[in-house]
C-alpha cells in the first residue's frame, strides 16, 4: 500500500489534556505529525483538529478509529489531499526601504498574490496563503531582498464532500449544549493559600 499525505479532521470537546491524548496516538507508533492545527470550530465549545501525516490508508484508518474512541472526541474523518481543499498561511517580514526602492519586489509580491498586512518605516509584513510550494516560492524570491522573518501556519483543510456538516454540528450542540472548560483558577493565589 502506498504512503501519502492524509488529512485527519477531528471534532472534539474543548478539554484540558485532550491534545496530548490525541498526540500520543501518533507518537506511540513513532509516526511524525507533519502539521497540526487546533482551533474552535464554528460551534462554541466544539474544537476542530486538522492533522496531516504521511501514511498508508490502512494505518490512517486505524489511527482515525483510535482517535474517535477517545471519550471526548465526537467524530473523525480522514481524507487524501485530492478530497480536500487546503491552505497554509504565511507571513513575511521584509525591510521597507528595499520594497520601496525595488520595483521588482512589488511585481514579485503581486505575482505571488501577497498582501501587505502592516507597513512601517522600518519593515513591512506580507501575507500569502496557498499550498506549500506557493508559500515556499515567495521565500526564495524574497531572500535576496533581506527577508527578516518568516512564519507559516499549520494546514487547514475543508472536506469537499462534507455535506451538511455545519447543520449537523449546530443540531448536535442544540440538543446537548457543551459544558464549560474547568481551568485552574488558583495559579495566581500563591501567597494567600495555606500550605501544609
Amino acid at each position, binding site marked *: 500500500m502506498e504512503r501519502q499525505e492524509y488529512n485527519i479532521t477531528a471534532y*472534539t*470537546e474543548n478539554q*484540558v*489534556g485532550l491534545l*496530548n*491524548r490525541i498526540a*500520543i496516538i501518533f507518537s*506511540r507508533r513513532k509516526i511524525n505529525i507533519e502539521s497540526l492545527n487546533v482551533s474552535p470550530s464554528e460551534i462554541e465549545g466544539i474544537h476542530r483538529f486538522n492533522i496531516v501525516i504521511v501514511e498508508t490508508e490502512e494505518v490512517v*484508518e*486505524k489511527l482515525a*478509529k*483510535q482517535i474517535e*474512541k477517545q*471519550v*471526548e*472526541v*465526537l467524530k473523525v474523518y480522514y481524507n487524501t489531499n485530492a478530497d480536500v481543499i487546503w491552505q497554509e498561511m504565511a507571513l513575511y517580514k521584509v525591510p521597507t526601504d528595499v520594497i520601496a526602492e525595488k520595483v521588482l519586489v512589488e511585481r514579485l509580491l503581486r505575482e505571488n498574490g501577497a498582501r501587505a498586512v502592516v507597513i512601517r518605516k522600518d519593515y513591512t509584513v506580507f501575507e500569502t496563503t496557498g499550498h506549500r510550494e506557493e508559500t515556499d516560492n515567495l521565500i526564495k524570491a524574497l531572500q535576496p531582498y533581506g527577508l527578516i522573518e518568516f512564519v507559516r501556519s499549520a494546514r487547514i483543510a475543508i472536506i469537499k464532500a462534507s455535506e451538511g456538516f455545519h447543520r449537523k454540528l449546530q443540531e*448536535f450542540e442544540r440538543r*446537548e449544549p*457543551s*459544558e464549560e472548560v*474547568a481551568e*485552574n*483558577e*488558583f*495559579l*495566581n*493565589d*500563591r501567597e494567600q*493559600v495555606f*500550605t*501544609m
Partner: protein
Amino acid sequence: MSTQTLAQPAASPAAAPETTPITGAVATLQALVAEGVDTIFGYPGGAIIPIYDALYDFQPELNHVLVRHEQGGIHAAQGYARSSGRVGVALATSGPGATNLVTGLADAMIDSTPLVCITGQVFAHLLGTDAFQETDIINITTPVTKWNYQVTRAEEIPEALAKAFYIARSGRPGPVLVDITKNAQMQTFDAPAYERCTHIRSYRPAPVVRKEYIEQAAALINSAKRPFILWGQGVVLGKAEQEFKEFVDKSGIPAAWTILGVGALATGHPLNVGMLGMHGNYGPNVLTNECDVLIAIGMRFDDRVTGRLDKYAKQAQVVHLDIDPTEIDKNVKTTVPVWGDCKETLPLLTALVERKEHPEWLARFNEYTAEEVDAVIREELFPTSEELTMGEVLQQLNEITGGEAVIVSDVGQHQMVACRYALQNQSRSHVTSGGLGTMGFALPAAIGAKFGAPHRPVVAIIGDGGVQMTIQELGTIMQTGVDVKIIILNNQFLGMVRQWQELFHQRRYSFVDIQSPDFVTVAAGYRIAGQRVDDRAELRSALEKMLAHPGSFLLEVMVTKENNIFPMVPQGCSVAEIRLR
C-alpha cells in the same frame, strides 16, 4: 452530560434542589457510597490526608484495605473487579503514591478492567512548581487510562466521579484516574444530591447493532462445514455467559478460549475444545488453520494467540463480534463485522443459526487432544519421574476443589500450567494478568479477588520469582485476616525466561537463577501458616490441609527445575507449526 438522580427521599414540592455544605473529601466518599462501592484499596499520604480524614467517619460502609504498596493496592482493586464484575477502587497519594499505580493501570488498560483510581495532588496553586511530591500524573497516565481528569475545585468532584464510574464500567471497560488537588479536598461547597452519569455526549460506549451484519454472519455460519469459535474476555465483561452458551449449544460449534476468556464456558463442556495461543492446546491451534469459518467473540487476536499473522487462518472467513470498533480489522481482516455488545448480538445471532452438530469436525479436535495427552499432558499431570511437576499440583487441586475455586495466577510457566489445567466450572474463576504479563500481580490480586468473591475459596498460584515482586502484601493479608491460599510453585528459576534461553539461546542461562528466602519462614513472620512440600507422598495431604485451614495458608511446592511448557508456538511461527516437544 445527562444524569439520573439516585433514589432520594421525596423532596418538598417546588423546593429548589437541596444542597448540603460538605468538603470535597466528604463529597468524594459520598460519591463512592452512591456508586455502590463497598471496598477500597489504598495507602495514605500528605496530599490525600483530607480524604483519609473523612474516611475515618465512613466505616464500616467503605471498607478500606490498607495495602503495603500502591501497586499492591491497584492489583487488589483489579482482582476485586475481576472476581466480582464490579468497579474496583484504589486510593493513593500524590507523587510516588500515584506513580506506583502506573503498572496496574497499564495492566487494567490492556485487560479492560474497570477501575476508578483516586490520587491526591498538591494544592492547585502549586501545580507546575515542582512542589513537594508533585508529579504530573495526568500526563503520565494518559496512555494507560481510558479517561483521566484533574479536579482543582471541590464543586467538580461529584460530576467528575460520576463520569469516572460511568466510563470505567460502560462499553469496553477500563481504568480511569481522577486526580484531586488538596485544596479541592479541603474546600467546603454546597453539594447537590449526587447524580449518577448515564450519558456523555461525545462518548458512544457501544456501537449500534446492525441487523444486516447479524444476518450475513448467520448465513456464513449456517453454510460452514468446519466452523470454529474463539472467545475471549468480552463474553465475561459483557456478562453474556448464558447467551454465549446458548449460541454454542445450538450451533454445535467447537469453541476455544483465550486465557482471559477461560471459564465463560465451563472447562468440562463437551464443545469446549481448550485454550488458544502460544501455550494453548494442540487441536485449537492447528485447526485454526483448517476451519472454514472463524467466529471470534470478544477477543482481540493478540499476537500471543495468533502467532505469525500472515499465516493465520488465511483459509477462513472471519466473523468478529466486538464492542470496540477499533478491534475489528485491527489484526485479522473480517468478512463480517458484528459490532456491538455481545449480550445483545449473541441472542440475535443464536436466533438465526441452525441447530446443528459437527461430529466429524469435533472428532478432529479430540484426535489432537489424544495426541497432546500422550505427548505432554499425561506426564505433566501424572508424572512417572521422581520430582514433582507443576501440573500434578493443579491436578490434585482440581480433584479436591472440583473446579469451584477462584484461581489467581501470576506470570510465567506456572501461569501457563494454571491456565491449561485448572478446572473452571463457572465464569470469573481465573484472574491473571493477560495482556501485560505483570509479574507480582497474583498475590495482591488474590487479596482483592477474595474481597470481591468472599464466599468462594481463592487460591493464588505464583512462581518463586513473581511472588518476590509483591511479597510485602503478606502484611495486608496478616492485618485484614483475608483468607487467601497461596501456592508457590518453586522451580528455583525464572522459569519462563529460562525456557526461552534453553530453546532459543543455546542454554545460556543468563540471570535466571534466582534465589529465594525460606518462604514458609517469611510467612510465619507475617503470622501466616505455611508448609513446604518436596515429596509426592505429602502433596495431597498438604493441599487438603491448606484448603481446610481456617484463614490464609502458604504452601511452597518444590517442583522439578527445568521443565518446559509445551505445546508451544515458537515466536515467528504459525499456529499450525505448534511444537509438542
